[in-house]
């Protein structure tokens, strides 16, 4: 194994351009499992531990910028994140246990692109953007477009996740985060839901944002449902209609953790009860 240990972002991007086959290492909570299994023996490792600047979380009136190397624990502690992005805070508190939250980073979570990434449904409903950096420059990708499939991202060779930008949302009428798994902690989810709902003065739905995780190769916003409910009253009839549309935007599977049927039914129930305020 060859170990590259840059001390700055510029140096890291230069080294990565020279060795695009290198494995970037952040908190190591996924990487070290592969390393311990001997899967990284012959690889070049780009250790990002020296990039302190990429660990910062900064907030303005309109945007919260979370450095890719901020840990799940850092995110939970940050005052502006707690105030404006409570669903992300709740999700970070359900990633593994305390030990994983103290080491695992948000950028690493995204880069590993698990269909079950706990932070993804909140980032999807918060309309986050992912800032990618390479020696050639920087670009921003909407959160929903960063994943290319199971464990795959649209990152190009030599590109690293530098930061996640989240627009400060106006205060929703109600919000939902729910992880459904075998056990509260450590378990990988069967399904996960994040929702934000804004009601107009007349009680109709001004906007709904609803995302599901573990229900498709990547996190999914329920575009059909979101469009259907706009301008309607959030009553039981609408909840039934919305639930019937969920399957259009997801593709759940049977696997070791659950079945497609169960996943869909629970997700439909989470959506319906969120709309009618029964959660």
């Amino acid at each position, binding site marked *: *194994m060859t170990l590259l*240990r840059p001390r700055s972002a510029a140096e890291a991007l230069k080294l990565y351009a020279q060795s695009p086959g290198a494995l970037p290492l952040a908190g190591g909570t996924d990487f*070290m499992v592969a390393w311990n299994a001997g899967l990284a023996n012959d690889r070049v490792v780009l250790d990002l531990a020296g990039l302190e600047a990429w660990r910062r979380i900064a907030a303005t009136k309109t945007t919260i910028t979370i450095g890719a190397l901020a840990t799940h624990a850092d995110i939970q502690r940050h005052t502006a994140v707690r105030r404006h992005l409570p669903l992300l805070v709740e999700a970070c508190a359900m990633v*593994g*246990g*305390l*030990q994983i939250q103290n080491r695992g980073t948000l950028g690493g979570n995204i880069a590993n692109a698990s269909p079950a990434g706990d932070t993804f449904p909140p980032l999807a409903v918060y309309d986050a953007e992912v800032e990618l950096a390479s020696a050639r420059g920087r670009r921003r990708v909407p959160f929903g477009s960063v994943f290319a499939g199971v464990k795959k991202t649209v990152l190009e060779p030599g590109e690293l996740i530098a930061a996640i930008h989240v627009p400060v949302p106006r205060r929703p009428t109600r919000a939902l985060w729910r992880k459904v798994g075998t056990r*509260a*902690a450590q378990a990988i989810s069967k399904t996960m839901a994040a929702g934000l709902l804004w009601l107009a003065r007349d009680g109709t739905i001004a906007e709904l944002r609803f995302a599901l995780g573990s229900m498709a190769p990547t996190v999914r916003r329920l575009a059909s449902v979101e469009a259907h409910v706009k301008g309607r009253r959030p009553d039981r009839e609408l909840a039934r209609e919305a639930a019937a549309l969920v399957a259009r935007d997801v593709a759940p599977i049977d696997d070791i953790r659950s079945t497609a049927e169960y996943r869909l039914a629970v997700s439909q129930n989470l959506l319906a009860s969120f709309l009618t305020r029964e959660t």
Partner: protein
Amino acid sequence: MKRLSLRVNGTLQRYDGPPFTRLIDVLREDWGLTGTKEGCGEGECGACTVLLDGKPVNSCLIPVCHAAGRKVQTVEALGTPGKLAALQEAFLTEGGAQCGICTPGMLMTAWAYVKKGGSDDPGAIRRELAGNLCRCTGYQHIVNSVASAVRKQRRSRAAKRR
């Protein structure tokens, strides 16, 4: 390879092997600190928990180079058989240990929790210990042990203020 130094249980330790050796292996094999146990080796069970700069981490997932220049505390920092720490006494009197494999990790996570002034609320303790699995399933007694240590610390702090 560059020499690394770590402050382990208050003592400066030097290390000059491969930088990607797991922290748990360096602790146990290079420095003989065998109190730290390995369970799953994948960050699922928390048996190998140590404190890195005061925070619980899985030592099986930390390359030793990431601990360079930092403070590491293992269960050996808590107490000795002749002079147990209050938290260890609590585990002893409340029956918080059965087979013992999870105990060093439980103690380290719980120690960080007690030190930061955690409450004796069983729900809060369970959330904090969620990353530590006990295959004997002795959770109730472990939670009781931690709650008892929290209350004891509170009493002794109150007594000092008086």
